[in-house]
């Protein structure tokens, strides 16, 4: 019997991810408890461990999402959603982390509702937030507004900003060029752009842009969901 039909790889991936998610659930829960209840332990180390777990959780989501993209199987399940709910969901997953790192998160946006896939967009926001967390000095801004074009969401850090070659490779990535030197970072960006692009309305598709912020000189990612 051929290997593929004896052990369908799609199901192997699904079963393995389920297993990893169950395990991560337990690790995350225990760490959360230890951090919150134990005064005597070195919290910095635990918080560091938690950061890595949240990252791993996102890499797993991203990996599975990209696997579905490669198969053209990633589907967007849009529903009327309050944008603030999605932002808060994404942040809630990073709750303990943000509490212990001295990073301030500011949200600027009205309490507006938009037609989008809350799971996927929350996923995208978490990926961009983790990225911002890595580069920021001490502040992350999340902004969202609407215009005639659609919903704009931006995640802005106040770090040193991206070097030109990274911005250029991002441009190439979203333009559809083959990705050289695949890393988890550019794979993550690729995934985010794909998810946003899969959102469409009356023939218009969403898009993303990575650039350096004019004001705070940090980096920013802008997303438009039509």
């Amino acid at each position, binding site marked *: 019997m051929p290997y593929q039909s004896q052990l369908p790889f799609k*199901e192997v*991936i*699904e079963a393995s*991810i*389920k*297993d990893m*998610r*169950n395990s*991560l*659930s*337990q690790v*995350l*829960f*225990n760490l*959360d*408890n230890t951090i919150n209840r134990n005064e005597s332990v070195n919290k910095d180390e635990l918080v560091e461990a938690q950061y890595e777990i949240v990252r791993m*959780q996102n890499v797993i989501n991203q990996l*599975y999402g990209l696997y579905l993209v490669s198969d053209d*199987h990633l*589907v*967007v*399940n*849009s*529903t*009327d959603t*309050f944008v603030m*709910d999605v932002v*808060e*969901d994404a*942040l*809630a*997953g990073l*709750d*303990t982390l*943000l*509490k212990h790192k001295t990073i*301030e*998160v*500011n*949200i600027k946006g009205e309490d507006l*509702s938009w*037609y989008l896939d809350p*799971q996927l967009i929350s996923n995208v926001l978490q990926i961009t937030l983790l990225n911002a967390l890595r580069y920021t000095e001490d502040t992350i801004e999340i902004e969202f507004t609407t215009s005639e074009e659609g919903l704009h969401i931006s995640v802005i850090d106040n770090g040193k900003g991206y070097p030109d070659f990274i911005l250029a490779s991002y441009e190439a990535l979203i333009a559809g060029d083959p990705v050289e030197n695949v890393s988890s970072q550019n794979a993550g960006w690729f995934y985010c752009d794909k998810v946003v692009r899969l959102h*469409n*309305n*009356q023939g218009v598709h969403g898009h993303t842009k990575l650039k350096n912020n004019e004001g705070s000189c940090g980096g920013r990612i802008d997303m438009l969901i039509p």
Partner: protein
Amino acid sequence: MDKSLFQGKAAQKSSVYAGLQALVADEFENSRVSIRQMLQGLGIQHVDQTSSGKGVVEACRSRRYDIVLCDFRLTGGKNGQQVLEELRELQLLKPTNIFIIVSAETGRDVVMGIMESQPDEYLSKPFTQAVLARRLERQFLQTKALSSMKTLLANQKYQELIPLCAQHIEQQGRYAAWCKRTLVDAYLSIGALQELERLCQVELEQRDVDWALLGLARKYLEEDDLANAVSILQKVIQLFPQTISAYDLLASAYEKTGRLEDAQAVLDDAIKISPRIHKRQKHMASVSLANGDPQSALKASQQTVRLGINSIHENPDDYIQLVDIVAESASQVESSIERKRLLAEASQALTVVSKRFADDDSVKLRKTLAESRFHASQGQMREAQQSLKAAKQLASDLEGGLPQDLVVEYGKTLYNAGEHEQAETILASLVNDQSTSDALKQQAADFLDEPVSLGAKAQAKALNKEGLSYYSQKDYLKAIHEFKTALEVSPRHPGLNLNLVQTCLKLMEEKGNEPHMVAECVQAIQRLKHVSPSHKQYKRLSALKEYLTKHYKVMF
């Protein structure tokens, strides 16, 4: 807003949560314990736990939980989706109770199935206490705001519900989207189709949105405007390929217009996206049966039975259908191991159905009839007769005799057991009886048209298609050959017989009168004695008969 605001919320809410009762269901103990601790951390003092689906149902019977957090994977056979469906069916959930399905699953089949069962919330693992706190808070706020509307909806009091929804929308309430979706159902239920159309059109001027397009399609279906319904549903699927209910509706619309192959193709797409839905697999089984596609029918029928087990959907029809499909298609399975396995599956289905529905005499009768057909299909005529005899006894023991809806099954069984004349009499009288429902008449007529196995039907259908293709190329000799070969496997098929007659007449128009061909036509017409005036081929039959009488001096 800064992050500290919502981080403090859980603590603030603890007084609100204090009096609530929650149930946690998960197959793993450590998972149950951690979720329970999270809930207790939020201030919920009463948290019960269980590992099985049966445990959830029993717990909900004895106590009304405000919150149920149920994993998809549970011990004991039932999954979270089946539990939710059962709780709703048994009315063990109040509209204001919150049912959350928790899952680490990634597979689209599982996730789509869960979504289709419409839990209040779906939480994917892993999640932190902060995430759980946010979701619960959101659910409580929503439930509080919508409780009177949700109660009216559950009690189907649409006339009172509609103004409340409209008011919430007008005041630009937070749950306007929920109200709009609910209005679609409410308007449909009371037949307010103009209002429904206006609601959807206003929304669609703003943007493409699945529920508004679906609402319009359902309006057209309600009005029997199938062409418009089909075109809108096709648009929904193109724009929002995950909108699974659009596939089901489109398949039904195709079915109503006689486009059975299109219906099957759409259901096939739907099953690729979300296969774990009983009614969808059941629909697929019936459409592919009507299409003469035994392989697809078998697969869908097996899935229907599997999805029924442990769920509220379990039904004797599903088992009996599986037995019939196996009986009629097993001979086509090439591998003898596979064939044996299938036959064993059918025997197993017969055993299970009589066990599961032991108290139901009509099921017992149906099972015995199915058993007879099963034996007959395998050439075991003595056993077939024995079962038939037992079935006749069971039928005469039934109060009021054989129920009308079982006459077709009974007639089929008689025919397959070799009692052709009796079968024809009983089925023909069903067709000619004014009180018979159209669906039942159709079933009886279909059987009288083609009392052959699924495999034979499929073969005849393929040959007929070939014949029609030759006919359209005006290659009448080859067409006649195909039709005649098809008639060897399905001799009573009206369409086939009439195709043969028509082709012979065409050929004779070109080449002149041929006595053996006229005889061929007469035989074909004589094979159609079972076609009654209500049959859809009756007109065509009469016309061809008349033509033969007039031009070829044939007497019938």
